[in-house]
C-alpha cells in the first residue's frame, strides 16, 4: 500500500521553484547571471521566450538583460523606445561612466526608456507574470529589481459587430477578446473618474486578468463586497471564458436559469454600470458579465431605450409572452388533446382528431420526438459552418415540415406546435435564458402527460416556486414582480412595459438607495 503511494508520489511533478498556488518562489538576486540562470530554468523549453543579454556603456562593462514572449509584444515599442535608447543613446551619454554607475538603475529607469508605461517589480514571480502577459522585463546587473515595460501588443481581431444581441438601432460595436480593449469600449461611454476598473488575476496557471467595472458612488457596497468575496472563494487552474467565472460565482448551480447576465454589447454593459451594476470583464472573453441580474434584465434589449416607448413596450410584452409560450405550449397541447378535448373548439377538435387518425404514436411521444428533432437541427445548424448550416435548415424544414407529416409519422398540428415553440424561444433576447425555458419545457411536458391540465399547472407552479426562490447576489430573481416594495414599486416602470423615458428618472434596485435620481428634466413639456 505504501509502495503504491510512494510510486504515485514519484509520478508527481517535483518542483522546488513553485509553491502550491503555482507562484514562483525563487527570490531575485543582485547577480544578473544568477537571475538569468533562474529565468532560463523557468522558461526551459519555452521556445517563444525571447531573451537577450547585452552590455552597455562604452566599455561594455554593465550587463543588462531583456526578455519577452515573441509576438505578444509590440516590436516597435521595444525597438524604438527601448533598444534604440539603451543600446545607442546610453552608449553615447558621457564618458564619465563611473559617475552614473552608482545610479545607473535610476538613470535607465527615468531616462533610458522612452515610454510611459514603466513599472518596477521586486519579485521574480511578478517579473515572470509580466513577461507572460506580454510585457518586457529589463534586468540590470547588481540590482534585485526588475523593470517592467508595458509592451503588450498581441494580435487580436479588433472591434467587430456583435453576432448575438443584434439590434436595428443603436451602436454596432461588440466586445472583443482583449481585456484592455473592452475596458476602453466602456470607458469611452462613461468618462468619469468614479468609473473604477478594479483588476484581479484568477487562475493559478492561466493567470487571467479580470476587471471589475463599476461606478464607485452608485454601486451597492454590499454587492461589490460579495462579488469580490466570491471571486476570491475559489482556486482554479485556468479561466478560459467568462462562462467559467459565471458558473463559479452564481447563487444556485441547480437552476436551469442563468443568474448572471452575459453581454457582448458595450452599450448594454455601460447602461448596466450606470444603473449601479457591476461588470466583470474577463480577458480572452468577448462576453462581459453583469451582476446582479434579475429575470427582467434578460428581457431587455439595449435597443429598448433607443426606440420610442410605445413600440418597445409592446415588444417587451411580446417577449414575455414568447417566453411563456416557449415553455408551456407543448405541455398545454398535450394536456388539452389527451385529457380535456372538450376545451378545444369543436371544429378544431375534429380537425386534430382526423389528422391524428393514422399517426401511430401517442401524442406525448409525437411531441417529444418533434421537439428533439428540432433540438438536433438547432445544434447541427450551430456547429456547421455558415453555408452548410443553411442547408441544414432547408433539409430539416422539408423533412420535418412536410415529409414526416405526409408519411403520417406526426400530425400537422404538432408541427405547428413545435414551430410556434421554436419561434417563441428565438424571440427571447438573451440566449442563456432561452436555454432555461427550453429545458423547463420538457418538465412541463412530463407533468402534463401524467396529470393533464392539473399536471400542467403543478409543473408551472414548480417552475414558479423555483424562480421565486432564486436570488442573484441578494436580489430576488423575479424582481420587480415580487418584493417590488423594496424599491417602492419603482422598477415596475421598466418591466413588462417600458414607460416613456422621462418617467424612468430613477435608477433601479441595483443602485445605492441614496443615488437613485438619474434624470432631471428642467422644463417639462406643457409647463
Amino acid at each position, binding site marked *: 500500500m505504501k509502495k503504491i503511494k510512494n510510486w504515485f508520489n514519484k509520478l508527481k511533478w517535483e518542483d522546488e521553484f513553485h509553491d502550491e498556488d503555482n507562484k514562483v518562489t525563487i527570490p531575485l538576486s543582485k547577480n544578473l547571471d544568477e537571475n538569468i540562470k533562474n529565468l532560463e530554468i523557468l522558461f526551459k523549453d519555452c521556445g517563444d521566450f525571447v531573451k537577450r543579454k547585452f552590455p552597455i556603456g562604452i566599455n561594455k562593462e554593465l550587463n543588462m538583460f531583456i526578455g519577452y514572449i515573441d509576438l505578444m509584444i509590440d516590436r516597435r515599442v521595444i525597438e524604438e523606445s527601448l533598444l534604440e535608447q539603451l543600446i545607442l543613446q546610453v552608449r553615447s551619454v558621457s564618458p564619465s561612466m563611473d559617475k552614473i554607475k552608482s545610479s545607473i538603475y535610476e538613470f535607465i529607469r527615468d531616462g533610458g526608456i522612452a515610454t510611459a508605461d514603466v513599472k518596477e517589480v521586486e519579485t521574480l514571480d511578478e517579473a515572470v507574470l509580466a513577461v507572460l502577459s506580454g510585457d518586457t522585463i529589463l534586468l540590470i546587473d547588481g540590482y534585485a529589481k526588475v523593470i517592467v515595460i508595458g509592451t503588450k501588443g498581441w494580435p487580436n481581431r479588433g472591434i467587430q459587430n456583435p453576432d448575438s444581441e443584434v439590434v436595428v438601432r443603436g451602436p454596432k460595436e461588440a466586445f472583443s477578446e482583449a481585456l484592455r480593449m473592452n475596458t476602453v469600449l466602456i470607458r469611452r461611454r462613461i468618462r468619469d473618474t468614479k468609473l473604477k476598473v478594479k483588476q484581479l488575476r484568477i487562475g493559478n496557471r492561466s493567470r487571467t486578468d479580470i476587471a471589475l467595472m463599476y461606478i464607485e458612488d452608485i454601486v451597492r457596497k*454590499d*454587492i461589490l463586497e*460579495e462579488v469580490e468575496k466570491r471571486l476570491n472563494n475559489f482556486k482554479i487552474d485556468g479561466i478560459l471564458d467568462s462562462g467559467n467565472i459565471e458558473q463559479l460565482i452564481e447563487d444556485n448551480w441547480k437552476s436551469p436559469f442563468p443568474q448572471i447576465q452575459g453581454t457582448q454589447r458595450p452599450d448594454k454593459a455601460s447602461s448596466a454600470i450606470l444603473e449601479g451594476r457591476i461588470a466583470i470583464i474577463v480577458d480572452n472573453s468577448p462576453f462581459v458579465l453583469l451582476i446582479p441580474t434579475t429575470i427582467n434584465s434578460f428581457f431587455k434589449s439595449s435597443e429598448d431605450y433607443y426606440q420610442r416607448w410605445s413600440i418597445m413596450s409592446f415588444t417587451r410584452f411580446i417577449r414575455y409572452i414568447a417566453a411563456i409560450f416557449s415553455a408551456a405550449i407543448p405541455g398545454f397541447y398535450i394536456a388539452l388533446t389527451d*385529457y*380535456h378535448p*372538450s*376545451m*378545444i*373548439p*369543436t371544429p378544431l*377538435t375534429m380537425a386534430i382528431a382526423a389528422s391524428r387518425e393514422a399517426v401511430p404514436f401517442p401524442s406525448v411521444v409525437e411531441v417529444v420526438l418533434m421537439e428533439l428533432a428540432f433540438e438536433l437541427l438547432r445544434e447541427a445548424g450551430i456547429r456547421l459552418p455558415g453555408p452548410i448550416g443553411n442547408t441544414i435548415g432547408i433539409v430539416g424544414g422539408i423533412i420535418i415540415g412536410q415529409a414526416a407529416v405526409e408519411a403520417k409519422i406526426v400530425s400537422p398540428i404538432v408541427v405547428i406546435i413545435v414551430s410556434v415553440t421554436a419561434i417563441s424561444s428565438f424571440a427571447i433576447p438573451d440566449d442563456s435564458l432561452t436555454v432555461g425555458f427550453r429545458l423547463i419545457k420538457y418538465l412541463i411536458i412530463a407533468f402534463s402527460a401524467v*396529470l*393533464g*391540465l*392539473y*399536471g400542467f*399547472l*403543478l409543473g408551472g*407552479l*414548480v417552475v*414558479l*416556486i423555483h424562480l*421565486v*426562490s432564486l436570488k442573484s*447576489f*441578494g*436580489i*430576488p430573481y*423575479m424582481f420587480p*414582480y*415580487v*418584493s*417590488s*416594495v*423594496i424599491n417602492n414599486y419603482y422598477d415596475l416602470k421598466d418591466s413588462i412595459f417600458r414607460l416613456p423615458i422621462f418617467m424612468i428618472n430613477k435608477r433601479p*434596485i441595483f443602485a445605492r438607495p441614496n443615488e437613485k435620481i438619474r434624470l432631471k428634466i428642467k422644463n417639462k413639456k406643457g409647463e
Partner: protein
Amino acid sequence: MFSQNNKISMRQLEILLFLDLFSTAVLILPRRAAEFANQDGWIIVILSTFLALFYSWIITYLASRFPKDTFVEFSSKILSKPVGIILSLFLFIKICFNTAMELRIFGELVKQILLPRTPIEVIMISMLFVSAYLVRQGYEARGRLGEILFFVIFIPIISILLFVLPVTDFRNLKPILTTPLSKLLKGSYDLGFTFSYIEFLLMVAPLVKNPKGLKKSAFKVIGMVGFINVILVIVTLGVFGSIETKEQIWPVIGLMQVIEIPGAFLERQDALMMIFWITSVFSLISAGLYFVSFIITRIMEVEEHKFLVFPMIPIIYLIALIPDNIAETLDSINIMKNYFRISFLFPIPLILIIVAKIRKLGETIEKK
C-alpha cells in the same frame, strides 16, 4: 442582504392572507349563504365579515403585544410552559386536520372534474409534494410566490365576474330582507368560520419585517375579501337563483360553466377556470403545511424548519384519506367546525389577553 429568507414584507403578508382567506371561502360560500338565507345570503356575508373583523382585532391585539413571539412562545409565557405546549399541539392538530380536509375536498373535485380515472391518492400526493417544495424554500419564497399567484387568482375571478354580469339577473335577489334576524345571525356566525385562517396571524408576527401594522393590514385584507365575497355571492345568486345555488355543491364552478367568452379560443372555460382554483387551494395547503411544520419547529425549539416538512406529509395525507366519501368529508368538517373552530379565533386569544394584562406581560403599544 435585502431580504432574509424568513422575513416577509407587510404587503406580502397581506397578499398571503388574502389568498388564504379567499380560497377557503370562494367555492362554498354562495351555497352556504343561500342555505341560511336564500336570496338574502349576501347580507350574511357582510355580517360575517364584520365578525371576522372582530376576531382579527382580538388576534392581532394579542400578536402585536408579543411582536417577537409566535403563539407557541407567548402562550407558554402567559400560561406556563406545559399549558402553552398543549395549546400549541392543539393548534397543530387543528391545522393538520383543516389542511387534510382541504386537500381531500380538493382531490375529490379534481377527480370529479378533471381526472375521473386518476387515483385520488396521486392527485393529493402530487399536490402535497409541490407544496412541500415551496415550504422548504422558506416563508419568504411563499410571500414572493403569493405576489405572483395573486394575479393568477385575481384576474380569473374578476374576469368571471365581468363575463357573468351580462347573464346575471338581479331580480333574483328580490325580495330583500325577508329572512328572520335569528337565521341571519346564525348564518353569519357560521360563515364567519370561512375566515378562520386569520388564526395564522397568531404565528406570523416574527415572520414579518415590521409587525406594527399587523392590525391595519388584517383589517384591510378582511375588508377586501369580504367585499369580493359579497359580490361573488350576489352574482351567483343572480345567475342561479337561490334555489339552484343551494342545490349545487360547488356553485362557483357552475358559474364558470355559464360563461361564454365571445371569440374565445377555448370551447369550455370551466376546466381552465379550475386553474385559478387549483392555485388558490395550493396556496392554502402550502400555508397549512408551513404552519404545521413551523409550530413543531417552535415546540421542539429547532432552528431549521426544512427537515420537518417531509415528516408532515404522511400525517396530513393519512388524515385526508380517512373519510370514505365527499359527504363524510363535509360532515367531519362540520363536526370540527362545531367543536373546535371557534376556539382559536375568540376564546383562547381572549383568555390569553386577559391573563397577559393581569400579569402585565408583553409590550403595550396601544398607549399614546
